[in-house]
């Protein structure tokens, strides 16, 4: 008999028609459940990445949907981690999407009592100028003893253990070029 769709899908009837009289299984299954798919399968693309937390270096698979990270899980191919992740690594997606993440430059002027807005371009311009000025004002060509110095002791740079090798390379290279010797990172801490 051909009943209208809505009636035919009425679980009470399906209980009888689909051999599930108790209505504990298939008959009670909804359209959504039938069509269910893991969202990873719907990802636009997947990239192989590395966990950003500790130095074990577990492999990660980053799933991307509509330009957003839709999920991050372990990369089974990694001989180090075999697809497994600890709570931190497993929380990487929430870390990337942290409610506290900032996406705007914030500026606090000397003696200021609040953050102000500032364009990234202006910020870069100002920072470059600060470095140039401070460096000029504090340049030390020789030490008191008259030994060569070629440096500024008025500027320091901190950080690196959470950065990429390429980033660290540029930091050190730039600082050498500028005569900034106080370059340090967590390896010390």
């Amino acid at each position, binding site marked *: 008999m051909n009943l209208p769709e809505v009636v035919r899908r009425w*679980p*009470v009837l399906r*209980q009888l028609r689909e051999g599930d009289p*108790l209505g*504990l299984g298939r008959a009670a299954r909804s359209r959504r459940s039938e069509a269910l798919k893991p969202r990873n399968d719907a990802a636009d693309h997947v990239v192989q990445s590395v966990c950003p937390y500790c130095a074990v270096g577990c492999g990660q698979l980053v799933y991307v949907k509509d330009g957003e990270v839709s999920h991050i899980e372990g990369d089974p191919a990694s001989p180090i981690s075999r697809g497994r992740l600890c709570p931190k690594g497993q929380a990487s997606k929430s870390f990337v999407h942290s409610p506290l993440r900032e996406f705007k430059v914030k500026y606090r002027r000397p003696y200021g009592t609040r953050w102000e807005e500032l364009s990234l371009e202006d910020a870069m311009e100002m920072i470059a100028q600060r470095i140039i000025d401070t460096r000029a004002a504090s340049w030390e060509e020789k030490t008191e003893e008259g030994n060569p110095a070629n440096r500024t002791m008025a500027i320091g740079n901190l950080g690196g253990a959470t950065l990429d090798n390429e980033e660290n390379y540029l930091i050190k290279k730039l600082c050498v070029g500028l005569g900034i010797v106080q370059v340090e990172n967590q390896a010390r801490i």
Partner: protein
Amino acid sequence: MSSYYGRPVLKEPVWQREIPWYFFTGGLGGASSVLSLVARVSGNELLAQRSIQIASAADAVSPLLLLSDLGRPERFLNMLRVFKVTSPMSVGSWILAYTSAASSVSAFLNTIGRFKRTADLARLASAGSGAPLAVYTATLISDTAIPVWHEARHELPFLFGSSAIASAGAASTIVVPPSDAGPARRMAIGGAIVENVVMKAMEKRLGMLGEPYRQGEAGNYAKLAKACSLGGAALIGLGGRRSRIAAAAGGTLLLAGEAALRWSVFKAGFQSARDPKYTVTPQRERAGYGPPSRTRPDSAEASM
């Protein structure tokens, strides 16, 4: 008896105040339908009409109570999505739907006084489903992991049944002149007595699991229920025949008692879920375990 930092093993029910009230209205409505039918058969027209009106009123309130307790009220129709004999609530939903439809039709026709045959058919129908309606709620709560409900499965239906009889009787006693309310009075008194006897027997048999019925909120409601039901019954018994006031007062008191009884049972369930000993102790005995093989860690005890 130890558990994880003294935490409950079971979750307390998430049902709110609507549910015990529904137990009450369900019982009242269901038993009233039966009362109405028997009254009709025995030719007590007035009693038959008033009681079916009570029934339809109660059956109209019941679904609303259930609906407002749902987490997703807009999905109330899903209750009729399946029919599951394994689920007293599913069965009950169908019964309730059927009963309230029947009783309201019957009541309506009765009131306007036309289509007598249809009205009687409807009354018959509502009575047929009204009786189970008054009782199934006991099965509903017995069919859970809550110790004091599940273990009381042999008594609860009788407790709820007798309570329903008492309620229906009391309600009709109020609205029907004493001259025609004889059967209602006897139901009220009889129901009240039976119910108290069953309650006592149940607690006795449950042993340790009887405690929650006597303690805390549940205990208070139980005392209230006992006082009101027996008090109400007495009042009806002594003055209900002559004085309409006494009948009304007694009926009201009795109804209050029946409501309190449902609340008592309801609360007892929560209390027994909250304390892990009611879950663990009986199960250990059942499984024939001896005392725990390891003594509990001091540190864990300390941090409880």
